[in-house]
């Protein structure tokens, strides 16, 4: 009887470990995708990478309030002529609502160098919505807000 109890406890512990391992793996994947997304938007501007990261029904909200669909966002990012210097992504925090829904919050700083020669410092608080589709985390929503 005692032996049986030990076996049950062992199985429960094993199952708990597995769940923790999975969410740790999900968290790692989401953080990696967040960093890739940021370095693509403010760096390489590669549209194929963006297409692989954006979910079909994604919506993309800018800090000044305007809102874009997946297609509009990918087109305007890849055509953006500004160069972003001193980019920094910090204080990344991942929160899960369930196994396939998470948000990421982080702070983004950069200096935007526009083609007209002006430099604008950016300081954003970002919220990203990630959903798991066929085993891959995809960007379902984004809302930037200027930190004042």
């Amino acid at each position, binding site marked *: 009887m005692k032996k049986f109890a030990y076996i049950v406890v062992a199985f429960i512990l094993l199952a708990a470990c597995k769940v923790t391992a999975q969410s740790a793996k999900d968290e790692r994947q989401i953080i990696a995708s967040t960093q890739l997304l940021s370095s693509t938007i403010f760096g390489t501007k590669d549209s194929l990478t963006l297409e692989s990261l954006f979910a079909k029904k994604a919506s993309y*909200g800018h800090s000044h309030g305007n*809102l874009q669909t997946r297609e509009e966002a990918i087109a305007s990012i890849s055509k953006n002529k500004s160069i972003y210097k001193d980019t920094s992504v910090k204080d990344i925090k991942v929160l*899960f609502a369930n196994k396939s829904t998470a948000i990421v919050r982080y702070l983004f700083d950069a200096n935007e160098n526009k083609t007209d020669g002006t430099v604008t410092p950016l300081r954003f608080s970002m919220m990203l919505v990630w959903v798991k589709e066929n085993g891959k985390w995809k960007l379902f929503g984004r*809302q930037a807000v200027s*930190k004042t």
Partner: protein
Amino acid sequence: MGNGNYSEDKLLVKHKMKFTIVILLLFTSLIAVAQTDEIKLTVTLKEFHKALVDNNTVSVNQQTDKALSYGHSNGWIETKADMIKNLETGYMNYNSIKEDSIQVTINGAMANVRFVADINATLDGNTNSFRLKVLEVWVKKGKRWLLFARQAVK
């Protein structure tokens, strides 16, 4: 071409039509289900905003996920505990919330809701009006939609 073939063809057409009607009906009911889900969520969203205005922290507690992350347009972020505490102490008071242009995008057991809101709120004794663009992330747990995340921008 005999008579037999003719009636067989007719039968085939009849079957095909029946099949098409069944498929159409299925689609209509699917769309109807999706629509009721969107309507339900819109109602829930408005009820939640009313609970904020009414300072009904019992409802706010029931309508939000434990992982709630509630972001304001100045970058300030409240957790669920923060939000309830700030309503209870009167540090944050919502005087009115009026939504328009509500857009619901459902994806399985979660949804993004985008809308524009006219908000009048009192923070630490200072009353201000805002017109905000808001993204709210809702998740369905059991039969209920719960607010999981929110970010507003001016």
